[in-house]
């Protein structure tokens, strides 16, 4: 990697500003994102968490330029996504942003070798005049997958396929790597290898890495996590500590266990103190005689 590292990418920062997204449906539009505010620093590695249908994958597809936000603004590095044409979005995916889909089969040519898959993935960047700073073999070796280089994808195990799929995601030297559920069908050993790979990509290649995951192990391994709940940023975790996030409109998403205690419609007393506020349900407090 010494020969390639000189031209390795720097990461892109991400800014979501009140992003709303609707899916049109004959039965009525489905709201996927209800005003997401999110800032990610360049070169940061973080995970998007949240229950199924919360909007994580929508965030990912908006970042990849596969869809356009219904409202709000998305800024990725110097690019304001809403202002880019379809051609520019294509170019962006070829050169700057890469998305690794959940199923490895959807990221790879099953009949091709790992090397050929990397080369295939680089074709987009090459077609846009960008020469990736590494050859397929160099990349695979750098990411610890040298022994897999000549093997046909269809003969690889699930974990190996996932790792090759992630490698193909960074084949074109993207500055933002988006990974959807990278460990969903893997055993623990493969999962750890994938997490390690993501760390190496972030640290060695300098790309900003955004992973969408359900996997607590992945979440725990990430320096920063953002939890999406019901189409909003519900919480954020940093170095193992969970935080609620105050929205632009002053709203706060309560964690699910808190929400069980304080179901919607509950009247709360807000008491302010130096470090913040206390939310109390007066009906649950013992009455002073």
């Amino acid at each position, binding site marked *: 990697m010494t020969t390639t590292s000189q031209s390795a990418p720097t990461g892109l920062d991400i800014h979501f500003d009140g992003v709303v997204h609707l899916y049109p449906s004959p039965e009525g539009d489905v709201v996927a994102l209800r005003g997401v505010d999110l800032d990610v620093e360049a*070169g940061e590695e973080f995970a998007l968490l949240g229950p199924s249908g919360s909007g994580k994958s929508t965030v990912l597809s908006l970042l990849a330029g596969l869809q356009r936000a219904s409202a709000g603004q998305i800024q990725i590095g110097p690019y304001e996504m809403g202002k880019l044409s379809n051609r520019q979005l294509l170019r962006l995916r070829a050169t700057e942003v890469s998305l690794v889909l959940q199923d490895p089969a959807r990221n790879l040519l099953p009949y091709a070798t790992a090397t*050929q898959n990397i080369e295939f993935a680089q074709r987009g960047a090459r077609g846009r*005049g960008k020469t990736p700073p590494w050859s397929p073999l160099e990349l695979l070796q750098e990411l610890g997958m040298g022994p897999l280089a000549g093997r046909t994808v269809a003969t690889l195990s699930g974990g190996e396929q996932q790792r090759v799929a992630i490698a193909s995601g960074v084949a074109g030297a993207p500055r933002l790597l988006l990974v959807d559920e990278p460990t969903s069908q893997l055993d623990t050993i493969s999962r750890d290898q994938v997490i390690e790979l993501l760390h190496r990509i972030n640290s060695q290649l300098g790309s900003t890495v955004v992973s969408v995951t359900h996997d607590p192990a992945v979440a725990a391994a990430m320096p920063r996590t953002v939890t999406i709940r019901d189409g909003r940023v519900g919480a954020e975790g940093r170095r193992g500590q969970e935080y609620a996030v105050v929205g632009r409109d002053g709203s706060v998403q309560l964690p699910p266990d808190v929400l069980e205690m304080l179901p919607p419609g509950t009247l709360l007393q807000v008491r302010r103190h130096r470090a913040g506020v206390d939310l109390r349900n007066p009906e649950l407090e013992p009455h002073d005689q």
Partner: protein
Amino acid sequence: MRPRHPIRYRRVSIDRGVSADTEKEEIRPLNQLRLLTRALRWRAGAAVALLLVATVAVVAAAAGPLYLDTANDSVLHSVLLSNSVQANGITVIPQFSPTTPGSFVERAALVLQAARRYGIYRWYDQGKTVLDAGVAVTARSGIAYASDLISDPGQCGTLRFISGSCPTAPDQVAVTARSLAALGAHLGSTVAVVPVHGGPSVPVKVVGIVSLGNPAASFWFGGESGYFDFGPAIGCSITQSCLPHLDAFFTGAATAAGFPSVQAIDEFPIKIGAVHTTVAATFNSAVGAFARYTNQALAAPVSTDLGKELSQASQESNLMQAIVVVVDLQLVLLALFVLFGLVARTAEAREKEVALAKLRGFRTRSVLAVGLLEPVAMLCVSLPVGLLLAFLAMRVAQPLLLPGALVTLQPLVLWAAVAAFAGGLFATLFGARRILTRRLSEELRAVEPKSSSTARAALDAAALALALAGILELLLAGVLNGSQANPLAAFAPGLVAVAVAVLGVRLLPVVAALVVRWTKDSPRLATGLAVRQVVRRPTSLRQITVLAVATALACFAVAGWAAAGVNRTTRADFVLGAARVLTVQVPSGVNLESAVDRADPSGHYAMAVMLSKIPSQNLLAVQVSRLRRVAYWPAGISSTRLATIVHWLTPHLQAPLIFIGSAVRATITENGSPTPPPDLVFNLVDSGGSPGVADFGFLKPGTHVYTATLPGTCLGGCHVLQLEPIWNPSSGGPQEAVYNLTLSQLQVLRGSVWKEVGGQLAKPGYWRGQGGGIKATASSQGGSPALSLAIDDQAADSVSPAVAPGALPSTLHGVVTRANGVSDPAAAGIENFDGNSLTLDVPYQVVALPQLGYEGFLVDLKTALRAETAPPSDTVSQVWLAPHAPAGIERSLRAQGLRVTKVQTPAADIQSMNRGGLALAYLFFLFAAGAAAVLAIGAAVFSVFMTSRRRAFELAVLRAIGVPNHTLLRSLLGEQLLVLGPGMVLGVGAGLLGALMALPSVPEFASTSGGPPVQLVFVALPIVMMLAALVVLLGAAAVLASAATLRLASWDRLRTEIT
């Protein structure tokens, strides 16, 4: 390890790229090829299927023009082979021209040189100059004959000498034995020959006796020069002598050239193998230039029938071309449609790769490459492979189907293949459009494409409307009314099939839904599964369309081919007249009817026939009693039963008066004593048709016995044609004579005994006056029955009055063809073989007559011959043999003295017709339809396989929950058959309906010149065999595809894996 960089954005436009060192895309064709190879191997089944279908499209497109070229050549050769060497060749005869220098012989030599100069020998054999001098020669008997003195280069090597040798020295000749006998000469005799256009006689010495050659042999160039023309005089004209004819006198060139009447004839036989349609333009140009030169410079016009033959070949080729183009177009379109369907099906397998390319930001052309490279690669391979296969197939088929024809890759073949390739590209692009245009987000979210049921309904409606409009147009334009041949009729079955199939596709889901209801409580799991799968995916039923169209075309093609084959056989049998026809020469002293009667006493196997093809006669005379057993008389040529016709034609004649002996005598009383005295002659004809007379000389008043010598051939029997009193007035004397003659005691000298032959002499009504100046009555003379003639002869009459025996009918019973235009069908005037007019009673009409075709008269042979008052001329004698005639009958006929010169069977005619343009067009249709059917079955099975393959997971689950393999196999098989079976059923129905509608208008059926009316017969066996073959093929393919699907439904399928 590189430290993390701080944010350092360069604000650059995304359009110009983020990298300053923009480089051109690195092209790695080898890697690309490796990847393509891997992809093709990964999807080998689909790749092979694509290659096969694309190849079929290219083969079909190339085969059309390739076949046409080859078949045109075959038709041309067939036409050339069926014509005489003279008709095919070139004959150049220098004409008298005061302005053209050189004798005939010298100019003929210059013609040969010119032929070389104009390149004629590329297509014609080396020309030769035949010298022919018309001569007259008198036999020792005093009879004068006409003949030809001929010098033909190569004659010494061709003639077969019975004795003597070939004439090489001057004034030597070789003649046939029969000519020598007629002359009363022998080997070594000297005969004086006189040039017909005047000049002194030339004595020639007979140095060789030759056997009769076959004038039809190519050496004799059609025999028109009268090489072997022995026989009575044939009319009188400038070119034809009134004298009886002898066979030619073969002599050396020097002798012939010395005759002032000599004509030099240049003959150029054609090299059939060298004439091809591909060189037609060069050929016509060269022959045209040659003909212009000889005509203008040498006053030697070229005569050839080649133009007519080429025109005939061209007409056949045009008909064939129209059918082949129509058929080929349908096959190519079907192949392209199948290709489109196949690409659409197999594109699904590449959908994820296309999505991946879009995900990785590939340029549009790169996305297209990912989506289309495999099918386009297969298309590219299919172009040369298809061309090669088409060429090889034609080369393989050429000796079997089109012997002698040339198989060449003309530019049109290449263009057709390229057009099919272009069509394939379009079909590929159109078939893959969904995966290329689908939005990536939809693909990633696995959103099913919007329902296209409305689009499908619109497509179906459009197809149905187009098909119905096409059928309507064909009907309104009169293409299908059967009155006129139109190759466009071949479109009808395809259109009917499309209409039926589209309706079927729409109706079958309804039927299947009903079946679902019926099978709701059925314990048969396999049936239930199969029916439900069909109902669940009604779009799979669309395969019915292709299969139905292909089956319909196959059905139509087989029905048409078989019916055309039957009609060709019928036609060949009818055109010939019998299973075997012998053209015979009847030597002098031999009677055709008697010879046949003796060779076949049973009357079951042979029939004597005489016919004339002179347009004014068109007379076919047969032994009526044998007609039913021997002749081919197909149903449909007459509404009247053959038995009725035979009964009508059967003669009821009085016995003829025949003199068999050397002299005849009669007691004759002459009253009236005209001056000068009248002469009395019997006009006779011997059994060989040669005329003769028995002349009693001038008659004296009163009763006397007169004796007349009979011609020598009357020892074999001579028919009395007429009894003719001849009175020639003297100059200055009376110009009219009225007198009576009474004849009795008519006797013929047989050996040394006078035998009474006058049984019919005094028979009342036996004699019939001719010319109006004579009246015959029965009387008696000296107690003996006698014939009295009251004669009123006028010198002004150019024809002497005569009486003819009652054996000569004045009215014949006959049958006439409808096309003859007889205004009064009850009585038609015809010319007998002797050229005399007769009245024909014709209560019955037929469509056509054997050998004569649409115009002709059929009479009884015996009656026609009896009606003759002069020897027949320009007739053909034949013996027709029944199909089951014993092998020895020809030997028996020869033993009776008949000389067989030609043997014909319908097989030759059938073979010729089989090589005709229309038959070849049908053959192409048959192969094309077969290919289409196989293609459609393959495509349909493959399509259903691809559909069910997607259910491999579902099948694996069913296996996991304990559904037995055989049940799943039966279910899959049932599903295949539920989809494909109706396609075949609908196709068969549409094909037969199309055949009913279209076949009467297809040229093979509508063009029936000269033949019996065609019959639209459905020959069941070939259709059933074709269907059985299709069912077997379909069944086998369905079993294989079902088994393959079941193999995919393994336990592994239940785990997530790359597919």
